[in-house]
């Protein structure tokens, strides 16, 4: 499939714009953008399973929390703290390894479930990690959470570029999947699992691969988030919304499209920022945020990039590949 030149130009211009943007932003806006990129990474990875394999994975936030927790727990060990520049390599590699291992182990019970049951089963993943984080108090600090030692804090300026790179990497992964044999195998399973199996595409194997590669960038995003915020607890790192919001963002943008997650994340983050920072409402902003989600779910069933009205705009149609 060839690339539409207009879409390529638009994407390159957008990326370039985001690269020079931090020079003009205040620190609070920098943080908003950083967090948006973190959400975008989770959303793009969520879409690997939803868009390409047709599996609704509500446990994506579990990998995020796992990455954040593994990194922070290691940073609190004196032996890791003394490694110098290697410290960051060690914590990142361990966080990724932990997430990949967790994904690989959990794939076996979870992929025996299908559709609705798979969605519920994965939602329980985050519940499982929450229980562990709350109860393994010597390791995780329980409900008091964990602090990152101050000298390992990452400032938001560096965090912005790292998170941007990670987000572009995740989208590149989805782009690769949309145009490769691996992605073709995924789509084949999405269309008809039995047919895929009969032509030699082992559904279990490819689902396992998908879950593992989708867990890695999410765990890395968790590491970035922990280093930047300096503090994590079971609610911040492993709240239910870490798992549910990415699926909403992906759905809003249009699942299975490379740029869908970007649109979905941007829209939800803009709504969130406006409601929580700008409108001084007399009643809680969460109320209106919830109603907005509800309205979006009912009005745009198949996502923005796939909706007929969007496709009628000639310039933007190229993006919906």
């Amino acid at each position: 499939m060839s690339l539409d030149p207009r879409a390529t130009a638009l994407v390159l211009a957008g990326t370039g714009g985001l690269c020079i943007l931090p020079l003009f932003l205040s620190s609070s806006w920098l943080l908003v953008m950083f967090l948006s990129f973190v959400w975008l990474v989770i959303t793009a990875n969520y879409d690997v399973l939803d868009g390409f394999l047709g599996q609704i994975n509500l446990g994506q936030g579990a990998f995020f929390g796992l990455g954040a927790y593994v990194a922070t727990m290691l940073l609190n060990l004196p032996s890791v703290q003394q490694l110098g520049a290697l410290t960051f390599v060690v914590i990142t590699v361990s966080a990724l390894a932990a997430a990949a291992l967790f994904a690989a182990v959990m794939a076996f019970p979870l992929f025996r479930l299908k559709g609705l049951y798979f969605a519920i089963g994965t939602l329980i993943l985050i519940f499982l990690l929450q229980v562990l984080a709350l109860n393994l108090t010597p390791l995780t600090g329980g409900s008091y959470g964990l602090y990152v030692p101050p000298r390992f804090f990452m400032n938001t300026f560096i965090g912005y570029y790292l998170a941007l790179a990670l987000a572009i990497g995740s989208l590149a992964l989805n782009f690769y999947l949309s145009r490769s044999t691996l992605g073709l195998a995924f789509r084949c399973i999405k269309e008809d699992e039995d047919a895929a199996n009969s032509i030699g595409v082992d559904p279990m194997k490819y689902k396992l691969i998908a879950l593992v590669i989708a867990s890695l960038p999410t765990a890395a995003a968790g590491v970035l988030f922990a280093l930047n915020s300096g503090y994590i607890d079971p609610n911040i790192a492993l709240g239910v919304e870490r798992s549910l919001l990415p699926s909403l963002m992906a759905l809003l943008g249009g699942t299975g499209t490379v740029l869908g997650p970007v649109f979905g994340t941007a829209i939800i983050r803009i709504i969130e920022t406006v409601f929580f920072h700008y409108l001084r409402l007399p009643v809680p902003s969460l109320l209106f945020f919830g109603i907005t989600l509800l309205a979006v779910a009912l009005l745009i069933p198949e996502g923005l990039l796939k909706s007929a009205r969007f496709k009628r705009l000639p310039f933007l149609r190229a993006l919906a590949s």
Partner: protein
Amino acid sequence: MARALELVVGGLALGGIYALLAFSLSLTISTTRILNVSHGVFFVWGGACFVLFTQHLRLHPAVAILILTALFFVFALLFQWGIVRPLLGRNVHLLLVGSIMATFGLALSMESALGYAWVTYVDPYPVFTSSLAMFPVTLGGVALSGSRLVILGFVVLMVMGFHLFLQKTFWGRGARAMAQNFDGCLVIGLNPYRLSLILFTLAIMATAVSGAFYVLAVPLNPYEGLPLTLKAFTVVILAGVGNLPATLVAGAVLGLAEVITSQFLGTVWAPAVSLAILFLVLVFKPTGFFGKGVY
């Protein structure tokens, strides 16, 4: 011996509470395929309204339950008209994601509305407990709180009632037909909208009343809805989606496991054990304890 009996009775009573949390969710998921994330929030609203009526407005508990049922009847009609009806016609995948998104939005707004309204107008410390005194019961030398027995009795009645509804009545059989094949349902002339209206009305009223019973034994707070939904999902999956009588068994197994764990390992590990059981069941028997359920 008396100690063992105490554990068993305590575990069964806790199991009753879990079954109470899960049975109406199991009913709606299996038949309409709508994954209602806001289930726990309806439950908390039920408990909160009950506490408001009995403690702050000083109504008789029976009157309170009646008003509660009427309120949630109206709410269920709105829910069906506003959310379920637009979703039902979509294909399986879009129905699933759409229902998660819509009900998650609803859950967020209902949760924050309740928290805000309660703090502003009723009580700055929003914890819903019922002060209704329940007689303690002595059973074979074991003292047991009366409210837990009442819950156990209520949930067994409700589950059996819904089970009979699904098995014996015309609309119940229709609901099972809809669970099996939505298009087939249209072909034979069953109206899926009317079916889901009946199911959701019954299930939401049952959920609200269950919430009222729940606060008799366990205190609730406004932001507990989503965690309660997760807990309910655990029970539903363990029992096999749509298998209502098995919800009782799954609740009892979880209750016993948690009570025994609390006894020997400490209270904090109780939820971890229920999740471990869940994953073991998923590995060896993905359809839950008793297989596919009612359809």
